[in-house]
């Protein structure tokens, strides 16, 4: 059973006791693709480091595959794959050298586990003799994933794998993760990009060290309590300010092309349109995104 358990985990780095992670409990079932969603500084990396036995929690217990992260750290280190947030391979070694080094480190060879990494490795194989430092962001990501997979781990920890990667590569990357999941690997992945949350089977929304909600993306969206509308009109900045000033509007947030708003009272749509004194306003009811849910949970904490 390669699942992940966190029970009442606390961790603070400073003497003053400001918490990086506050009383976090989580359970990730075996074979799940689990996403840890939250902005920078939410405590995602801290949780990853506790689970990968790199740091010790101040209190609470954690286990991976039933092995305690403190007592059985050696077993865990053998059976997990970890990709830190920063690109952490040897920049002065070539693609092939990096891969071979990590394979040997885990007492295996590239050939032995070729099946698992084949799909990913094929894309970087043409650059076998290029130094890792000279690869593009997406390529680095693929190489790092290959290195983390080279020993066919039971659980894969990916800390912000798509940060700093272009949109196309990000999409590809999530495709690869789905593939890996189908091979029975438990995957825990973190990301600050809310739009990636819906690609996970289950997600935890984390903010300032606190887990706000754990559920499937659909469930989390279904739990959104209000009717949500998207509104658009020329002069979006001006519009946002007007919306926020309006007593009819409960929340107004900018979401790229549209502003997302909720009303303080049901059926105030017409009233609002009148009060805005604008001619070309487009407004429609929409399904909330994870980001809407995140903002909602954040403001109602």
């Amino acid at each position, binding site marked *: 059973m390669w699942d992940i358990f966190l029970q009442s985990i606390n961790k603070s780095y400073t003497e003053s006791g400001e918490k990086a992670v506050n009383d976090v409990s989580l359970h990730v079932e075996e074979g799940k693709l689990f996403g840890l969603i939250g902005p920078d500084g939410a405590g995602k990396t801290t949780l990853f480091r506790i689970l*990968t*036995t*790199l740091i010790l929690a101040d209190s609470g217990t954690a286990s991976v595959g039933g092995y305690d992260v403190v007592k059985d750290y050696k077993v865990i280190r053998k059976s997990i794959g970890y990709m830190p947030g920063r690109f952490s391979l*040897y920049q002065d070694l070539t693609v092939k050298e990096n891969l*071979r080094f*990590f394979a040997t*480190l885990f*007492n295996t060879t590239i050939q032995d586990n070729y099946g698992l990494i084949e799909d990913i490795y094929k894309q970087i194989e043409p650059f076998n003799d290029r130094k890792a430092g000279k690869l593009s962001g997406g390529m680095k990501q693929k190489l790092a994933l290959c*290195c983390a997979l080279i020993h066919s781990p039971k659980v894969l920890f990916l800390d912000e794998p798509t940060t700093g990667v272009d949109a196309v590569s990000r999409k590809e990357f999530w495709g690869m993760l789905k593939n890996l999941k189908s091979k029975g690997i438990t995957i825990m992945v973190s990301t600050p990009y809310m739009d990636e949350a819906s690609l996970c089977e289950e997600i935890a929304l984390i903010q300032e060290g606190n887990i706000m909600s754990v559920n499937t993306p659909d469930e989390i969206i279904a739990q959104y309590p209000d009717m949500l509308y998207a509104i658009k009109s020329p002069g979006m900045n001006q519009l946002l300010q007007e919306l926020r000033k309006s007593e009819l509007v409960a929340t107004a947030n900018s979401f790229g092309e549209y502003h997302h708003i909720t009303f303080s009272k049901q059926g105030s749509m017409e009233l609002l349109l009148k009060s805005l004194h604008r001619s070309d306003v487009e407004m429609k009811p929409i399904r909330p995104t994870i980001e809407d849910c995140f903002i909602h949970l954040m403001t109602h904490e």
Partner: protein
Amino acid sequence: MKQLLAFIHKEFLHVFRDPKTMLLLFGLPIAQILLFGFALSNEINHSNVIVIDYAKDVASRSIIEKVRASENFDLYDVLDDHHMIEEVFKRGETKMAIVFPSNFNEDLVHGGYTEVQLITDASDPNTATTLVNYFNMLLLGYQSEMYQDQQMPMNIQLSLRNIYNPELEGTTNFVPGVMALVLLLVCVLMTSVAIVKEKELGTMEILLVSPFNPFMVIISKVIPYLFLSIVNLIVILALSVFVLNLEIAGSIILLFGVSILLILAALSLGILISNVTNNQQTAMLISLMGMLLPTLMFTGFMFPIENMPKFLQVISNIIPSTWYYIIVKNVMIKGLGFESIWKESLILAGMTTFLLLVSIKKFKIRLS
């Protein structure tokens, strides 16, 4: 074992692919040896000397004439009284005084033997020895010129007195000093930077989250630098022998043995430094401040320890290179065997063991 070899191979790739590391590793020792070597063998021209002539006879006058004519010396002053010498020395106006005794010529001609006294300012022992050698040559020239036809051997003996640094301790034996300096510097600096680099780049995280034993990380960092240091040692010795014409008087095996002791001590120190620092700059700074300065100051190859204040002499005892310097001087320059250096070797071995144990004990199996 295969893992270790792969790791060591990787370390070598890091070194060979970084020109800066290569330069530091091999450029530094070569530059130092040559720099010191040529500073040592540099000719000294037009050095001020003073003469005190109690004899005022034919022989003393012709020698003074030779001094005056020599390229190496400038006759600064001829005094009547040796009590004035000290004052001239203190003002730093001269490095050497030549004293002719009364009846100089008479003793030489009738007795076949006399003495010239040389007083040198040996605070710069290098210059002092060179000046004495110049004068000796000049004197030999005079003797062979004047008495080549005579059957009776004529003999002018030099009587030497060094003031300020009577033992002539110092730069004369600079090679052992450079050896200590280079080995310490390269080993401490290189290992600490190599380990800290893994932390800084984040690769340490991945290494820790692997079945690889953290101690193996250390061992695989130490072995390449141990090897490279030995290569360095060979380069230094080769340069000393072939370029600077220095003879290795004692056993080479013994020399390598104690050098490896020092290298191990330095490597342990490097590991220790890497444990307490998180970025390469700090590691480099601590290594330089902690190693270069004390080694320069206290090993006695730049400044003789005997001339230092007592408390600095005490401090010098805790610096490994101090002991290494003594050992290497005894083995390499004086050609003594192990029986003469076992005490120092034991102290050095003790320090190495201590540092090694502390560095292993302090090594972290986690990030913080």
